[in-house]
């Protein structure tokens, strides 16, 4: 159905033209799912944009090769004729459902326009077709959704609208570029299942682009592994996973965090008998945001972001907060770091923050440092990285300039960078290196607790594995405790001593890592664990765990706080909320 041969995509940069995809050839048969997997910069997204004729203009172009759809050479088509192919015979869905729909046009308008541009249907027929498409992606109350605007829908719903839009005209080929990367795991499962079902019904050929080997194992018939713009291996799903031929594929598969593999380490550590004083102790933490409304702008509703969360972290220990977006895990971390007003008690190193003055609070804050999700956005692009790492020392007035430089140099070496890199600027580093710089910055004050908020989520798996290894080494060296926040259950299982599962601002289950993962007791925890795609094609599921309904809203009327969940000890410190 689709034949790509010798495809080369070049991008014009400052140093002349550079090939980002070189000599790529593959075929795609009707009803087949081809996964293109690879790490960032491997050229997988450029390939899909080249097929759609949507390469960023004027920098990028197809410099060699052909893309044939049936007997049509897409690379030779004029823009006008390509418009007739796009959305009609080849459709695409993108990674970011939150920004991929136009905010000022209704869902119906956007769907119907996609249908009308390629058919001669009357307004009423196009509308009927749109409703049919929304029903096909299992959106409840499809008809009334047409009037809604994108901001009124959740991320999962928006991605379904995108899929409905792409499949409304029953295209021959569907390109899905990281369609579930931005979604929560339970929603990811639903969307993947939906794609698979629709493909079966309509016989669409699918190109699925992903970095997630779990998704590959779940979906693919055939796999192409790409690296630096070249295809380095292709084969059937079982060949790739069971008999990888190339070292890089083996490394890639080896680096994927797997559930169930981290248990031995975790249980060995938690067997230590002595229980030292906690580094951080959180009691009944509440964070609420007021929403104003009405004539006088009074508080009419509140967002109950965090509702009575309690936990403690011991030195040398890693506590992970897991849960889906909006569950309050990042808010908890921010309150702990003193970035948000809160109520409840937070004690750091035995000192309750509430009773302290400004200067004392600043001194205590030295003991807590944060590493954020986006290593690109969390480093000031106008400062040399050495200064960035030294800045916390400067702020807290520690050491002479010479001592600071020495400490920064030592930190650079410790996190795997070289001393001569201190003079460089953030843009000269890769994502993984930047995250190392952020780690060095967090370590500069020798904190007792480091909060890592989705700190490895933006990294490629191989880089992610190395950064996680570094974090573990640093922990055993400095005895620092981690509060690790992640949506990735496999990563959490690998790094954590203790895990707390959050849902709607409350902890529903907490215990040692092996307790929670091997013996999940709360239904929500079970659903979260089941939803994670397993990087093993032999364990492919026919049905994913499905949410009965959308996650409830944490926004409530004033005077109507949510019921407090009571945690029960089901044995050996394993706490589970009544359900």
């Amino acid at each position, binding site marked *: 159905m689709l034949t790509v041969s010798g495809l080369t995509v070049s991008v014009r940069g400052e140093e002349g033209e550079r090939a980002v995809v070189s000599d790529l050839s593959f075929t795609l048969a009707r009803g087949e799912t081809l996964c293109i997997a690879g790490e960032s910069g491997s050229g997988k997204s450029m390939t899909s944009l080249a097929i*759609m004729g*949507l390469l960023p203009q004027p920098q990028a172009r197809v410099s060699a090769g052909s893309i044939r759809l049936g007997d049509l050479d897409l690379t030779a088509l004029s*823009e006008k004729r390509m*418009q*007739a*192919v*796009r*959305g*009609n015979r080849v*459709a*695409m869905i*993108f990674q*970011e459902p939150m*920004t*991929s*729909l*136009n*905010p*000022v*046009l*209704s869902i119906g308008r956007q769907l119907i*326009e*996609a249908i009308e*541009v*390629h058919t001669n249907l009357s307004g009423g027929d196009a509308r009927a077709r749109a409703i049919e498409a929304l029903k096909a992606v299992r959106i409840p109350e499809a008809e009334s959704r047409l009037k809604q*605007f994108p*901001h009124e829908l959740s991320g999962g719903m928006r991605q379904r609208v*995108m899929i409905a*839009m*792409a499949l409304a005209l029953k295209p021959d080929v569907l390109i899905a570029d990281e369609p579930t990367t931005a979604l929560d795991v339970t929603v990811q499962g639903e969307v993947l299942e939906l794609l698979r079902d629709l493909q079966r019904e309509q016989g669409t050929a699918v190109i699925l682009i992903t970095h997630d080997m779990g998704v590959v194992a779940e979906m693919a018939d055939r796999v192409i592994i790409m690296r630096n713009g070249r295809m380095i291996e292709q084969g059937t799903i079982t060949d790739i996973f069971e008999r990888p031929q190339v070292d890089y594929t083996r490394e890639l598969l080896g680096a994927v965090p797997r559930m169930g593999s981290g248990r031995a380490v975790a249980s060995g550590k938690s067997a230590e008998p002595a229980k030292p004083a906690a580094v951080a102790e959180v009691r009944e933490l509440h964070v609420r945001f007021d929403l*104003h*409304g*009405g*004539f006088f*702008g009074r508080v009419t509703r509140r967002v109950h972001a965090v509702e009575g969360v309690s936990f403690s972290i011991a030195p040398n220990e890693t506590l992970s907060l897991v849960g889906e977006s909006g569950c309050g895990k990042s808010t908890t971390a921010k309150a702990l770091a003193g970035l948000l007003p809160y109520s409840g008690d937070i004690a750091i190193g035995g000192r309750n923050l509430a009773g302290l003055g400004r200067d004392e609070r600043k001194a205590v804050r030295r003991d807590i440092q944060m590493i954020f999700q986006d290593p690109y956005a969390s480093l000031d692009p106008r400062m040399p990285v050495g200064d960035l790492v030294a800045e916390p020392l400067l702020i807290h007035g520690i050491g002479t300039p010479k001592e600071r430089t020495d400490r920064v140099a030592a930190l650079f070496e410790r996190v795997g960078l070289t001393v001569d890199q201190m003079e460089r600027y953030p843009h000269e580093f890769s994502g993984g290196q930047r995250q190392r710089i952020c780690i060095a910055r967090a370590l500069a004050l020798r904190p007792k607790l480091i909060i890592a908020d989705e700190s490895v989520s933006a990294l490629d798996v191989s880089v992610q594995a190395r950064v996680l290894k570094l974090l573990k080494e640093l922990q055993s060296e400095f005895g620092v405790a981690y509060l690790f926040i992640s949506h990735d259950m496999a990563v959490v299982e690998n790094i954590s001593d203790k895990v707390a599962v959050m849902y709607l601002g409350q902890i529903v289950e907490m215990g040692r890592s092996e307790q929670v993962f091997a013996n999940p007791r709360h239904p929500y925890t079970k659903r979260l664990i089941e939803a994670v795609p397993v990087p093993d094609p032999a364990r492919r599921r026919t049905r994913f765990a499905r949410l009965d309904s959308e996650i409830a809203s944490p926004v409530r009327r004033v005077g109507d706080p949510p019921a407090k969940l009571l945690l029960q000890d089901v044995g050996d410190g394993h706490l589970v909320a009544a359900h």
Partner: protein
Amino acid sequence: MIAYLTRRLIQAALILLGVSIITFALLYLLPADPVRQIAGRSATPQTVESIRQQLGLDQPFVVQYWRYLTNLLSGDLGRSYIQRSEVTELIVSRLPASLILMVGAILCELAIGLTMGLIAAAKRGSATDQTLMVGSFIGVSAPQFVVGLLLLYVFAVQLGWFPIGGYGTWQHAVLPSLTLGILGAGWYSRMMRSSMIDVLRQDYIRTARAKGLARHAILFRHALPNAILPVVAMIGIDIGLFMSGIVVVESVFGWPGIGQLAWQAIQRVDIPIIMGVTLVSACAIVLGNLLADIVAPFIDPRIKLR
């Protein structure tokens, strides 16, 4: 919606009260003496003093302001010192001319500015883009009396398409509106261009292209409504800018609007007229902003009025 409007109107009243206090205080502190202007050079000190008493200008500031405010609340803006007629009458007779000019100018600047910005963004980096942006730069930086005189010379004197000055038919309004509009068009074209370029980079534009939509549908249906929002907010603020432009343009074209009225009043320290014109301008600005805020939710459904 009604609650929102009520609240905004109460806010507007408070703003106008503030404007009236500040303007009144500034005029009170002015070294120029209105009584001397009225009485003339040859008047005796006794005449001057009696005029001062007659106008109540010998009273303390608070008393003067209080009297002004109470009159204002009953709709009375006072009498002109020089022109011997009610300020309200003077303003009402002049206002339509200025409103015509303002509407004409807004139409000019939107038509010219938005078109230029749209074309420049769609053809970003091309020679067209650069030419348009040089044009907008000239529009922004050229003084209005120069632009006005230039337009007069070319289109009225040389080509004879429009009358040289005066007021009456729509032809009279073209050149003054254009003069006022060119400055705004310069700003709007730059704003529109950058806003449009920003929008064209968004993911939903890529989605629209992936649907196979034609270029004009993407530009006008998907990009324009998103890009125009900051411009709409700007129009509200812009009315303030007009007020200063109007004084210049009205005197260049001999346009009988409140700009000229204000100009004459300032020269002769005719305090009631200055106050009246200032309050009317402030009203226009406040209403303009309110209007821009009310229009916004119709363009972007995410905006809610509360």
